[in-house]
């Protein structure tokens, strides 16, 4: 644009109202404003006094006839009838009253809106971000979600309580056992039953191994997004050994449907201790390899330290839990605060960071892997013998062999798998510490065999709310690092 070029050669910011003798570059030659009718294409809006040029931003204001550039409305979720000047001023940054933008002066530079996603290699699933950029700096962000909404809460009202885990396990698909555990604990609390100690220990074993595999994916994608492409290969390679163990125990590599109300679906396979011992021997050495690659790497440090900072107050205000909260310095872990399934009998530390940036979140996750391996080792050494599910015939299906022998077993099996067991009415909220934070299940029952309302408190849903705060006034390249470090799982967010 001609006037801005002249403005810049004078060494200052281009004036907002360039001198009227310089034609505004963005305006195509057209009839003078006085001859303009309401429906003429091109040219400034008729309210411009003749001879005076308008700032290009003004043509975005609603209420002008036939603006030159139609604002795009893909995905803007609020262009509604109550669109006032004041609101648009706020949205386009002419009036800034949020306290996380440091530059209080209204900027005359053009801000461009960049749409990132939903199909994007670095957004960890179908997350869509609308970034308002000023050059390379992000001023405002709006996360738009819902691209993976599956109606799981509605589906849960159609499935029986025993089928529930098949549904919830697909919410946070990187930590499916945690989802199943939250649901099963909620059902068991409403039923008023306690699972046998062996079942509780097996649950802890499986969920802590799941935490390890989930953090490995987080490290892998974190590394890949920032540029350490080999981390992707390393992370998934280690994960394979854990998934092989899961496949042996539960039958599936992912989405196991293993932790069910009443206990677990099947006992651990014979010689499972050899498999777990192999994992425990192998992983710490590999983690040292990753530390060699990343921990003191100047490129990694330059890209992750001081980036995506979320302070402790911001984290608490935005209901962020999990590694992001601990990296900000808050020592809060549900395994310590509200222990579940007998986890308080095992000794482990809770790693806490200092500055809440991407580097601290990465370190917290690596340390959590080591702590989880400690718990797995303790479970392996001290696992009690006994039943792997509660012995109540009204809740637990009978063993398959008994169906041929006993009529009651056959009838119970039939009733449990066609109708399901009924849960007394009530409501409860149970939360477990998933790799992403507090994963809770709010369950309401009205005495029937299906839940009346099943709501999952998804950690990634809340963690994403902090993205605008973490990404304010940062560069586009840091966006990728920040999203990767928050480790959102879109199945959890959208359910």
């Amino acid at each position, binding site marked *: 644009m001609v006037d801005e070029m002249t403005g810049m050669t004078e060494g200052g910011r281009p004036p907002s109202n360039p001198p009227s003798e310089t034609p505004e570059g963005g305006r195509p030659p057209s009839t003078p404003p006085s001859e303009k009718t309401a429906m003429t294409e091109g040219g400034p809006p008729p309210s411009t006094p003749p001879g005076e040029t308008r700032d290009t931003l003004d043509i975005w204001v609603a209420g002008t006839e036939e603006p030159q550039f139609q604002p795009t409305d893909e995905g803007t979720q609020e262009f509604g009838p109550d669109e006032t000047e004041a609101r648009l001023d706020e949205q386009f940054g002419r009036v800034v009253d949020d306290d996380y933008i440091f530059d209080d002066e209204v900027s005359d530079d053009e801000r461009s809106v960049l749409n990132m996603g939903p199909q994007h290699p670095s957004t960890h699933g179908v997350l869509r971000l609308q970034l308002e950029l000023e050059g390379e700096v992000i001023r405002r962000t709006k996360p738009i979600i819902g691209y993976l909404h599956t109606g799981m809460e509605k589906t849960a009202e159609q499935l029986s309580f025993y089928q529930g885990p098949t549904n919830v396990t697909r919410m946070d698909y990187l930590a499916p056992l945690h989802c199943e555990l939250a649901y099963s604990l909620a059902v068991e609390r409403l039923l008023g039953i306690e699972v046998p100690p062996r079942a509780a220990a097996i649950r802890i074993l499986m969920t802590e191994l799941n935490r390890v595999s989930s953090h490995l994916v987080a490290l892998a994608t974190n590394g890949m997004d920032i540029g350490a492409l080999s981390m992707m290969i390393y992370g998934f390679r280690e994960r394979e050994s854990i998934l092989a163990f899961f496949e042996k125990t539960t039958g599936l590599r992912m989405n196991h449907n293993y932790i069910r109300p009443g206990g677990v679906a099947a006992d651990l396979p014979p010689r499972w201790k050899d498999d777990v011992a192999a994992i425990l021997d192998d992983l710490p050495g590999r983690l040292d390899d990753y530390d060699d690659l990343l921990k003191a790497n100047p490129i990694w440090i330059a890209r992750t330290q001081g980036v995506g900072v979320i302070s402790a107050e911001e984290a608490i*205000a935005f209901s962020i839990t999990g590694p992001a909260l601990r990296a900000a310095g808050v020592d809060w872990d549900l395994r310590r605060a509200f222990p579940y399934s007998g986890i308080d009998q095992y000794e482990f530390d809770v790693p806490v960071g200092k500055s809440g940036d991407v580097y601290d979140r990465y370190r917290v996750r690596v340390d959590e892997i080591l702590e989880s391996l400690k718990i797995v080792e303790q479970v392996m050494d001290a696992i009690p013998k006994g039943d792997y599910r509660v012995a109540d015939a009204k809740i637990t299906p009978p063993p398959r062999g008994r169906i041929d022998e006993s009529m009651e077993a056959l009838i119970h099996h039939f009733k449990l798998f066609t109708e399901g067991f009924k849960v007394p009415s009530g*409501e409860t909220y149970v939360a477990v510490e998933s790799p992403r934070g507090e994963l809770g299940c709010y369950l309401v029952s009205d005495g029937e065999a299906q839940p009346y309302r099943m*709501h999952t408190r998804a950690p990634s849903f809340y963690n994403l709310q902090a993205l605008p705060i973490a990404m304010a006034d940062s560069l586009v390249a840091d966006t990728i690092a920040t999203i990767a470090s928050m480790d959102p799982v879109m199945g959890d967010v959208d359910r």
Partner: protein
Amino acid sequence: MNPVLESLAAGFDTVAWEESHGQDVARVPGEDWEAFARAAKEIGFEVCADVTAVDWLRQRPERYEVVANLLSIAHRTRLRMITSVGREDPTVASLTPIWPGAGFAEREVYDMFGIHFDGHPDLTRILMPDEWEGHPLRKDFGVGSVPVQFKESHQVS
């Protein structure tokens, strides 16, 4: 009742307190919802863990219940606030000015149930497409399942 909540209970006499499977539940009437929430934040519930709703359709006199689960890191305790909202023009005060973390959750409740939150900065659909009509988690909104056809079967109407 948890001793932490004594002062909170003393300040509001319209609130009914219950215990549900070991957790404290406060049934708050709609007009005191925001004041109670502020008071709860004052005494130490810094985190709003979850905001959700239940549709009781015809089982209760007031159709919807809005449920907020609060968490106190300092006191290591939880509190659940429940309020009942009627079926005509369901509206509740928003908790977002108190806890910004409730923003997305209240949008989800609006999207899924149609309950309005007064004072929410951006109450729009979040999970469904913008032009979707209806509120899916209401009990009178069908599941929307399609009949499953098998290869050899006749056309399912």
